[in-house]
């Protein structure tokens, strides 16, 4: 209950991996580590669901539900009943 970050939506299928190394390059938290024939999921809990690995994996070995981890956006989504929280450019965006 006091650790909300114990799980996430990252999924990796080593069978599809061609060991190109893109995921280890793009991940800012070193979630993937180089391996002999395929990369290893080295630090699953560090994943912040940014989606960079999925975006750059050429074989579709990685899936992750990525989104904006912005609390303002989520409160907004919760209040307005919209399910996909996004930051608006131009209007009062949470990030700049």
């Amino acid at each position, binding site marked *: 209950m006091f650790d*909300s970050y114990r799980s996430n939506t990252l999924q990796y299928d080593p069978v599809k991996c061609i060991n190109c190394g893109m995921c280890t390059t793009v991940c800012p938290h070193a979630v993937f580590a180089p391996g002999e024939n395929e990369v290893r999921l080295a630090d699953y809990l560090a994943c912040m669901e940014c989606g960079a690995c999925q975006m750059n994996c050429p074989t579709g070995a990685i899936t992750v539900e990525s989104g904006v981890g912005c*609390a303002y956006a989520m409160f907004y989504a919760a209040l307005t009943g919209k399910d996909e929280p996004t930051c608006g450019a131009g209007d009062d965006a949470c990030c700049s």
Partner: protein
Amino acid sequence: MSGTIFTFTTPPVHPTTNHLTLSDHWDHLRARVGINRSGHLVEPGLYSLGNPTPDSPVFVTANYTLSFDAVRSSLDDWMKCYILVLDTKGINVWCAAGKGTFGTGELVNRIHITGLADKVNHRVLILPQLGATGVSAHEVKKLSGFRVEYGPVRAADLSAYLKTHKATPEMRRVQFNVIERLVLFPVELVKVLPYLLVISIILYFASGPLAAAGAAAAMLAGIFLFPILLPFIPTKDFSSKGFLLGGLIALPFALAAYRYGIEPAPCIHISRAITPMLLMPPVTAFISLNFTGSTTFTSVTGVRKEISTYTRVMAWMFASGTATLIILAILRITGW
């Protein structure tokens, strides 16, 4: 003649420097404080730094002045290069990539518009690593022929990166050091300040200076102390960290409130002491929770969980705190 027609169809390359002027710094200051939030942009397109040749490297960045200036100012004087600026509507690389405006489509589009393929011999683009969230390297290659190379997370490491075209593991990791945490403070302060003033003034007249100071302390703890102390508060979730911090800040207020004035009934003393303990922690926790959006650590799944776990507790504490505050104010005004 055909050459003339060609130069008409591709926009000119804008020359730029690695030198930041006073007005650049002024613009950065305003951006950091959150003034004119969507107005800190440069024109998208191709920029040249130090007379580049067709062999010079091409860096890609967002058209937010802080992003663009971070890239050009971190490049050395002798470095000749192109900077391709994508149209991200004045949003930084990380947030724009999350939204997809710093993305495959815009990159491929901008390569075509600027005629980049005719300006350079090679087919390599150096992107900031945090742009990978919006860009698919293999798609870019397929659509434009350009190979995407992800540079370091921080522009400051660009020079070191260029020497080997390899980023060390440190260059690949995001950090969230005290300086990076503190630059968030001005924007948060500007966001919270109007509420802080209004609430403190109301409280001042309803319950006295102590209550007004308590409200200000709870909010300032959230926007200033929280980012500084973030790694040192011994719980995992941002909200529980905020509750702890707010509770600590509330303690002296509770003590002072308990001793305040001479009252016949001990229950009044106790209610006075309880009020800051009920009101201050949820305020600090709420502001702390909002920092999840500014960090590069929190996953959407986790933040969603945090919100559903803690907001109810925050609301209940805040509501019952407000109720005791109102009752105490009524008792005070009616001269009980």
